[in-house]
Every structure is written in C-alpha cells, then in structure tokens.
C-alpha cells in the first residue's frame, strides 16, 4: 500500500501556501483602519503586561487551585513539565530558524531577490498595510531606509507562538477552565497582533504552535512514564513549602512574560564571566 503520494503532498503544500496568503492579507487588512484599534492591539505586541501577564496569572491560578491536595499536586505536576517543555520549545524554534531563512512579511513588502538553486530570483512583494502603531511605523520607516534588525530576517517559525501555546496548552491540561482563557488570550492577543501587524505569517504561527504542542504532549507522556521519581518529590516539596515555591514561581512567571529574554541576558553575562575567570578573554 502506498501511503505517500508526491502529487497529493504538493497539492496540500500549495493549498497551505494559498491559505497562508489569504489569511495573512485578510488579517493585515484590519491594520491601518483605526487609530484606536491599532494602538490597543499594539499593546498585545509590545506590552508584557497585556501580552503575557494574563497568561502568567492563569498559570498562577492553576498552580494554587484545587479542591483538595491531590488535585493541586496533579496540576502542579502538569505545570512543572509545561515549564520545562517551554524552554525546549524555544530551543527547538530557534534551531529551525537557523535552517529556514524567511524574513517577516512586512520586510517582504520591499523589493528583494532570493536564492533559488544557484540563481537570484525576484521575490513577489507582499502587500503590507502599515498600522498606526508607533513601533511598527518606525520599523517600517527604518526598513525603507534599509535599516533592518537581524531578528526581522528570520520569522519562521514563530518562537512566541510556540512558547505561549505550550504554556497555555499546559495550563489547559492542568485546569480546563483557566486553560481555555489562556488559550483564547494567546490566540486573540499576542498571536493575532503578530499577524495583523505583519510580524508573522499564519504559517509561522501554525508551525510555532505545532512545535509547542508536540513538545508539550511528548514531554507530558515521557515525564509521566519515566520521570515520576524526579518530578513527584519536587511537587511534594512545593506542597510542603507553599510560600517559598510561590515566591520561586513568581521569578519563573516574571521571565515567562518576557519569553526568557532576561534569562538569556543573565546566561550571556554568566558565560562571559566564566570565560573571563578561566582567562579565555
């Protein structure tokens, strides 16, 4: 029996690309119409409070809730694995990013050429409606002068989508009601803003979210099957040291709101200090 049909595969691929373009344009068309809409939506992109604090609050609620101790412990187990998975999701999306070079949709609104085999071919220009949001307007002005930050040249897949979907789905697995709020917030606030403002295409988001979901589910399965002896004592410790574990969780959630940016900064300085101490620089 033949499971793989190249023609079917190509048609699925083409259909996905068409759907990607259609959804991107439909959403980007919402930008640049209303000053109020763009500024409010811009908060979902630029404000950690709006973008991520709600998801952090959902996580905290799921962590502290439970009708009895056994339910609380079960939820904490799921949430601990979720935190571990979210770090792996960031690593995975950053790795894929190194192999697939695709600038953000708004960058492709300028004339550009890309490699096809060993030739350069003109890239079809992507229509871009400029939102009234100050940061995006500035990025677009800079782009027109050739000033592009390197992060804007790699948009596939979306690490934000992967990270926030992983966290929100983890909350959902732990506590359905709160998790539904976290998932809806993720879809309609940070992720929608990314597409409407031309930062990501729907395909970037879908693949990022897919990576987030797959790693989370895989980790939940693996941890439950083989890592109970490691996780259960940690859960037990958090139950016995509620105040201290809540304080530690505050630090973790503080980082979640910035997609671990500060941790990366601390790690970088730590590496430099270690190299300095070892006389390598």
């Amino acid at each position, binding site marked *: 029996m033949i*499971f793989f049909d190249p023609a*079917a*595969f*190509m048609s*699925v*691929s083409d*259909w*996905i*690309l068409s759907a*990607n373009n259609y959804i991107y344009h439909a959403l980007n068309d919402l930008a640049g119409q209303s000053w109020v809409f763009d500024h409010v939506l811009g908060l979902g992109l630029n404000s950690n409070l709006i973008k991520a604090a709600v998801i952090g609050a959902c996580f905290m609620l799921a962590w502290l809730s439970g009708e009895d101790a056994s339910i609380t412990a079960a939820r904490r187990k799921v949430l601990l694995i979720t935190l571990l998975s979210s770090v792996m999701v960031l690593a995975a999306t950053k790795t894929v990013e190194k*192999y*697939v*070079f*695709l*600038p953000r949709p708004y*960058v492709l609104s*300028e*004339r*550009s*050429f*890309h*490699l096809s085999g*060993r*030739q*350069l071919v*003109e*890239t079809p220009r992507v229509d871009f409606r400029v939102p009234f949001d100050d940061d995006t307007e500035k990025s677009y002005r800079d*782009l*027109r*002068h*050739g*000033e*592009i930050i390197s992060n804007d*040249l790699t948009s*596939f*897949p979306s690490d934000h989508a992967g990270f926030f979907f992983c966290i929100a789905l983890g909350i959902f697995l732990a506590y359905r009601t709160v998790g539904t709020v976290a998932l809806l917030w993720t879809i309609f606030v940070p992720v929608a803003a990314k597409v409407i403002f031309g930062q990501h295409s729907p*395909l970037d988001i*879908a*693949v990022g979210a*897919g990576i987030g979901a797959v790693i989370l589910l895989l980790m939940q399965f693996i941890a439950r099957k083989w890592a109970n002896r490691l996780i259960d004592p940690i859960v037990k410790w958090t139950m016995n040291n509620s105040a201290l574990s809540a304080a530690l969780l505050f630090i973790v959630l503080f980082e979640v709101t910035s997609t671990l940016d500060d941790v990366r900064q601390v790690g970088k300085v730590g590496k430099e200090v270690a190299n300095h101490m070892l006389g390598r620089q």
Partner: protein
Amino acid sequence: MKRIRLKRLLIGMIVLAAGVMGAGCELDQKGMVLFPDPSYRASVVGTDSDGFTVPDGILWSQGRFLIADEGGNAFRIWNGPGQVTTLCDSTMGVMSPEDMAVDAVGNIYFTDDDAGGLWKINNLGQASRLVDKDKGLTSTEGIVLAPDGNLLVGDGQGHKVFTVTPNGAVSEFLGTDFGITKAESMVFDEKGNLFIGDNEDNILYMLTPDKKLHRVIANREGFSPETIWYAKGVLYITDSQDGKLFKYTPEDGLNVLAVFGGKLHAVNGVTTDDDGAIYVSIQTDLVKKVGYLLKIEQEKH
C-alpha cells in the same frame, strides 16, 4: 471501524504535517538581497562551483575579475564560469589573500592577513613575494596604489599603514599615533583624498592630501566598513558584520543600497565595471568553501 478511522486520522495528520513542512521549505529563501530603492536588481554572476571558492577582495579589470580567493588560498583571474586562471596559491605560501591593487603597467599586488607580507604578480603572470613578514607587514589588509606610483598597505597587527615602493622598499606612512586600528580597505578619490575603512573600530576615515585625518563616519550603529571602493563620485562600502552595501557621497551622506541576509549575509569585496554595475563577493562559509559573486545594477527605464 474505530481503528480504521484512527488510522485515517493519523495518515491525515501526517500528510498535513508534511504539507506544512513542505510549505515551510518552499518558503525558505536561503539567501536574500533587499533594495530600499526598487530601481536596483541583483543577479548571480558566479558561485563556488564556477572556478573559485570563497572570494574576499575583487577587482574588475579589463573585462575580467581579479579574485583574492580566501577560501581557496589562491589568487585567480576569472573570465566567467569555468574560465579561470590561478596565478598563485598555497604552494607558494599564500594563506588568506585579502585585497589587491593593479599598477599602470598591469602588475598585480595583493595582501594576505594570515601569511603577512606583500605579493606581486607581474604582467607576465609570474608570482613572487615582494615583501616578507619581517619588514613589519605581519598581517596585511587594505592596499591601494598611490598617485605617486607607490603602494599603501594597511597592517592589522601593527596598526599602521606602510608605503611600499614597486621595488619592495618599506617605510611607515601612518604610524600608531594616527589611531587607526585596522586599515581593512583603502581607496583614493579623484581629489587625492584617501579613504580608509577600519572595521575594528568601525570608522571611515578620510586623509586629505596635506595628511590631515578626518573621521567621516564614526560611532554609527550598524556600520562596520569591510571593503571600500570609489567610482564616479560615489564611495561604495560593504559591511560583512551587518550584511549591508552602502553608498556614500559628501552631499547625500551614507545610505543603504542593499541589505543581505541568510546565506548571502557576509558581503565582502566590492568593485564596479565600466558601465557602472556593482559587483560584490559573498563569503557564505569559509570552512565548507561556499561563496558567491553577485552583480547589482540599476534598471534603466
């Protein structure tokens, strides 16, 4: 029944995942050249499979390219795909050829930042080492033919610029007191001003004929001059760190002409032909020996 449905669902998910990955791969641009001014276009002139590996300095001379092939440890003349003449390579001690200059009678001089010294290929194609490392030229970078017929050679380790006569006599032209850390590239304009690109301090200098040094561009974020080239009143500047090609004129200042990304990020050498087309060399991967030679031209309407 339930099992068959599950199997179909699984196959559907695999096809969808493969389709998404396929779409992602189809969107993969690998490398990009972007133009803020849409009247420009880019094309590939040659690649590492056309007779060179990873070019650094390039020079258009009489309808052919002189290529300092850093990845191939060789100096080559390139007339097009497969039409290559290697004039000098590692068998003579060449390690990392950098930059070059041609004198009035067609002798070629080139620098080497790993082997040091200065190399000469006379107009009969015979190569020799004109100046050895022990004359103070330990890591040679930029080179330019001065109006008096001597060569000016930048040294990255000594932080100096030397004068080298056609016979190989060496003297100091700009000492450490001028504060140039690495004269990576140099070029004269028609008024006799010498432009010097320092890609360690990220400064573009201009030395006037009365030997006064000016900082033309300094402390500018996203600017590190790799190679500079002057043609028809315009100074072209490549920036391999930031993946940019700039054009500079005193009237318009510094402007980005092209942005390079992905496999084309590391833009190095730059030259122009008689029609004003710009050529740049790209160092994609020095270890795997992947490089490109690109042509950038303005469309005529």
